[in-house]
């Protein structure tokens, strides 16, 4: 089911949670709403489900306006962060719930319901747990039950509110791969709310980065990671080194002579911020070009798949984080206290409005 969010605004008291947000999601897509807590992503999800009503704007599902439609008419499946399983029912009864509350005329027969429950528990690989109570399951198992329960009513749209947020790192990783496979099998339109950028980039077809009630950027994981639209997105999607500076006369002169920009001297004095990812910084033991910054090695962390080196710039005293492959680190063989030269392979400069 395709989704159209049309200029939606939501306020709680005087606080604007969503500020004129518009979004389109294609049928069959899995989209992640990504942002820090309080950015409005969960509110947007709850508005789509019908658990909240927008103050302004409209919601369309499959081209039909549903802004004022009741939850039960929307046919959406909702998966809660803390599972929200019915604690007094067995796993099987939990999964069957959506079918047993159907009006008598639409309700499948008892045997058909049982069959369906078995099928769904098979899908989430929990057949053996059918007679257990939620309190007897691990967090990961509970969330899979919650997913099976949401799928039982054959929703055309699946909404997941930080579904793996309460799980430990390893289970979280397993479950999100499993979710992606499940999505590829079922082709249900899905919206996943998360504050974990790694999760969003790995699972989703498209990522919607949100901040303070606004959408900052929409794009494929590659697009938002490689081409962040603004400093916020840059910072939010992974570690980054930030260098503050002002545009100097010489810089403009040089750019002009190299034909890189037609900038005028009006730009002089403008603030600019340079963003460089730790793995986009190159280290060398001797000066090879003018662009390099001289820095002292403060700490080296070798645990993990990559080596992280923390430097201190000798000019500004600023801390710089560099990520190296193990091979490169062995080649360089730098130790704490030694002096190295840093330069960015790839950087992104954002002009900032004068303060």
């Amino acid at each position, binding site marked *: 089911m395709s989704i159209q969010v049309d200029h939606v605004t939501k306020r709680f008291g005087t606080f604007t949670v969503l500020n004129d947000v518009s979004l389109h999601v294609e049928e069959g897509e899995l989209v992640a709403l990504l942002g820090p807590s309080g950015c409005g992503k969960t509110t947007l999800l709850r508005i789509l489900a019908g658990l909240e009503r927008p103050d302004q704007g409209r919601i369309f599902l499959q081209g039909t306006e549903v802004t004022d439609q009741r939850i039960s008419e929307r046919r959406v499946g909702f998966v809660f962060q803390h599972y*929200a399983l*019915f604690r007094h029912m067995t796993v099987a009864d939990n999964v069957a719930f959506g079918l047993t509350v159907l009006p008598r005329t639409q309700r499948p027969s008892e045997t058909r319901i049982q069959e369906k429950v078995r099928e769904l528990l098979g899908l989430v690989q929990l057949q053996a747990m059918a007679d257990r109570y939620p309190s007897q399951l691990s967090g990961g198992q509970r969330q899979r039950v919650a997913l099976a329960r949401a799928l039982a009513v054959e929703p055309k749209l699946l909404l997941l509110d930080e579904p793996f947020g309460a799980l430990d790192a390893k289970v979280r990783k397993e479950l999100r791969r499993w979710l992606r496979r499940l999505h590829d099998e079922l082709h249900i339109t899905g919206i996943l709310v998360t504050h974990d950028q790694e999760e969003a980039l790995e699972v989703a077809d498209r990522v919607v980065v949100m901040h303070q009630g606004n959408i900052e950027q929409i794009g494929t994981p590659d697009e938002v990671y490689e081409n962040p639209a603004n400093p916020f997105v840059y910072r939010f999607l992974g570690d980054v080194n930030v260098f503050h500076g002002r545009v100097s006369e010489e810089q403009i002169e040089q750019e002009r002579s190299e034909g890189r920009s037609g900038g005028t001297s009006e730009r002089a004095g403008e603030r600019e911020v340079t963003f460089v990812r730790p793995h986009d910084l190159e280290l060398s033991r001797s000066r090879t070009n003018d662009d390099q910054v001289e820095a002292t090695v403060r700490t080296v962390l070798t645990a993990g798949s990559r080596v992280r080196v923390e430097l201190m710039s000798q000019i500004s005293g600023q801390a710089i984080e560099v990520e190296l492959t193990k091979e490169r680190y062995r080649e360089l063989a730098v130790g704490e206290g030694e002096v190295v030269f840093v330069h960015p392979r790839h950087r992104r400069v954002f002009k900032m409005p004068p303060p």
Partner: protein
Amino acid sequence: MKPIRVTADTDLQWKDSLTTESSLVRRLLIAAAFFYLTLFLFIPLAAVFAEAFKGGMAAYVGSFLNEDALAAIRLTLLVAFVAVPLNAVFGVAAAWAIAKFDFVGKQILVTLIDMPLAVSPVISGLIYVLLFGAQGWLGPWLAEHDIKIIFALPGIVLATIFVTVPFVARELIPLMQSQGRDEEEAAITLGASGWQMFTRVTLPNIKWSLLYGVILCNARAMGEFGAVSVVSGHIRGLTNTMPLHVEILYNEYNAVSAFAVASLLTLLAIVTLAAKAVVERKMLSPIIVADPVLPVQAGSSR
């Protein structure tokens, strides 16, 4: 292995001696508690039954087998029969509103529910006399229409309801607050109607606390003296509840009968306590675990 275990044991003892008092202090505290309970609970309780059976079994039974005593018992049961279900329904509704929704005046409602506990029962009774009594605000209108509230059954029921309002609601509010709205929202997103959500999700989750509240509410409804005393008028065989009947008998120096009826109320208290203990245990283990298998790690089942 052995040396390690010894170390662990001594560690434990060392920790014990840090966190608990010496055995002398412990024994003194326990003895003090027992002395206090014996003096103020067990002796009076024993005295009630001793006095009740002073005249022998026949006199004991005879205390109940007269018109006035039977009427008092019937009235008490009737009052509880009306007041307890009403307060159960009100308590669930109020707790639901307070725990699951935000609205203006929520704090005022919470305070109002607690009020009957803070106000002296005699005052609670007087409120109704002031409202419905012959000289009260609505008195003349009621007299005109020949409706009797004060010194009649409606007044007794009203006073009892007022006094027992907090019991169910106060039991449910903290529980429902801690359970949150998640399960109800899940039920709604799965297509349940409001009524289905209530009967299939909300009610099963609160049933033991509700029962607990009802038990306390019932005990208070049957035992209430002050408020009922003010509105009842003490008409024998008509508006006397059991506690009032006990007082009248006692004032007439009919000690055996007074204590006999009192022993019935005492039995009610004991039954209440027993029921409360059973329900409390159910509340602590909301789910009866059929086979206590340890949770399997997620993912290991694939």
